[in-house]
């Protein structure tokens, strides 16, 4: 499509909250991504999953201090990544 900018960003993010990526953080990630267009993938311990699925995020079993490789692809990639960084940094509101 003309005008569409295809951006792909890969960042490593550390899980800071004490229980890791459990149900609530997973739910808040999915919610946060709902209005975004980019496709988002998490990679942890050689496993890559779709970050729009709570059950898939849970399956990563990422604990505190795990490092997740986050791949965001799409026109709003930059903004989406920014939102994600914030959420991880704020420990999903648990701090």
């Amino acid at each position, binding site marked *: 499509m003309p005008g569409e900018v295809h951006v792909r960003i890969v960042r490593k993010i550390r899980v800071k909250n004490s229980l*890791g990526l459990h149900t609530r953080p997973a*739910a808040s990630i999915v*919610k946060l991504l709902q209005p975004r267009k980019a496709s988002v993938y998490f990679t942890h311990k050689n496993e890559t999953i*779709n970050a729009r*699925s709570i*059950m*898939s995020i849970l*399956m990563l*079993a990422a604990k505190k201090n795990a490092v997740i490789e986050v791949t965001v692809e799409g026109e709003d990639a930059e903004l989406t990544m920014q939102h994600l960084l914030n959420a991880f940094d704020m420990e999903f509101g648990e701090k």
Partner: protein
Amino acid sequence: MPPEEEEIIFRGIPISKGIGIGFPIFFAGAEDQVLEVAIPKKEIDLEIDRYRKALDLSRKDVETLQRLSLREDPPEIGSILGTHLEMMQDPLLTSVIEERIRGTQCNTESIFHHIIEEYKERFSTLQDHYFQERVRDIVDVSRRILGHLRPLERIKMGEVPHNSIILTHELVPSETIEANPSLVSAFVTTAGGITSHAAIIARAKGIPYVANVDIKQLKKLQVHSLIVDGSQGFVILNPTRQTLKKYQEIQKGHLKNYKVLKSASHLKGETIDGYEVRIFANLENPKEIDQLLKAGASGIGLFRSEYLFLSRKAFPSEEEQFVIYKRMVKSLKGRPLVIRVFDIGGDKKIDLPSHHPDAKYFTAIGHELNPSLGCRAIRFLLRYPEILHVQLRAILRASYYGEIHILIPMVSDISEVRIVRQTVEEVREALRKSGGKAAKRLPIGCMIEVPSSAIMCDALAEEVDFLSIGTNDLIQYVLAADRSNSSTSDLYFTTHPSILRLIRMVVAAANRARKSIIFCGECDTSMIPLLIGFGIREFSVAARHIPLIKHTIRKWRILDACRLAEEALEYSSAQELKQFLATHKR
């Protein structure tokens, strides 16, 4: 497909004796035995539509629950329900399932079932306890959706038609307890061993039961009627007129035998030379007291109080418990009532929905890899002292109306007994202050069913007022053989020499400390003379076995029994011992 009249015989493990003749009722848990059915290409869209509708109805369920919970429940519950809603919108439960329905052209139930099993598998291999625990949410959500896919298959055990033969993958105790013996003629299951709790209940109710039969295979056949032979382990589908006649004869014979025995039920349990042996009854359902008195019981030697919880799927309040215990002790008219405090956990668990107020007790413990060695019985009660408090208070209040004893299950260390004793005193004091009445004396006993407590029986005997040997668990723990696992139930011998030695040791310790000892559990009649020979004078068994036990005791002299016991101790293998006992059966 076999012709209508063809008789087919399946062979399983006999679990509960007797002959059941009746009609098949396939009893399904929401997730087991999902049939795989191919869907014609034209109907794929309809099938997907059916799944979407089930998902939609499930969402509406949860939304309603969420609205209700906003009013009264703590906010955590609302947020759990919120997560469930999110899960129902998860691509893994929406687009992935739809794609698979299209790809495999199979019915939704089977695909949904496969995917859920995959997730369960994945989560259960995770090392982290916390994440493992999330499986419960997934199971909960999937149950709800499956329930909407198959809304007609939920039958209640207490509401089946007359002459029903229940066919199911596995029986859980809470369902078995609901079964009405005048409606249910027999049970047939795929899983389950001789001494699972469900089996014990089936025997207590006198419902024939055969396990280890492939129900899935059976379901594929046309079954009009069937015979279950719980003594031999046969399940006969569509019996011929001849077979039917043969079994009806056997059934009549059983009934006659039982009547002969029953006429002996009001005789004393005593040996030929006049040694008295008291026979008490085990009880799960308080409504069955009349039956056990009719069978000639000297009282209730083991009231499995956890069934109050299992049958109503919630912890009963102090008042509810008080009313039940009081009514029980009154109808016993002076005979003792031994209440075993809640033995919850192990295979006595129920899956409560996560919004249930009592679910928190179980979610905090989580999925246990080895539940029989986990947080069950007294461990559970000490973890949640509020539950123990309520129960003890109800017991103390009821003790004013008759003779009640308290029995502590699964003691593995003396400290557990001491804590309970102290708690009883505290509760008694609080009760006194508030003007409540209780019996002056409330004997406290300890179950010997863990090897450590059998080994420490002398110290325990000093500490408690009575001991109670629970053979079912003791055997499973001593022999390291899972009693409900069909491939280890061969190892599970009531007559194992190690068990005999332990029993002798425990009886001796109780006698030295001058405390009474009661033998609880099921045993082969060939064991009875042995046990009296060791010095046991009190038994507690399922009510319907009382006449038989009395009958056996009345055939022996105490001296012969002692000699038999001494001789039996010389055998070193279970097999030899079994043969020896069989040759000395009277």
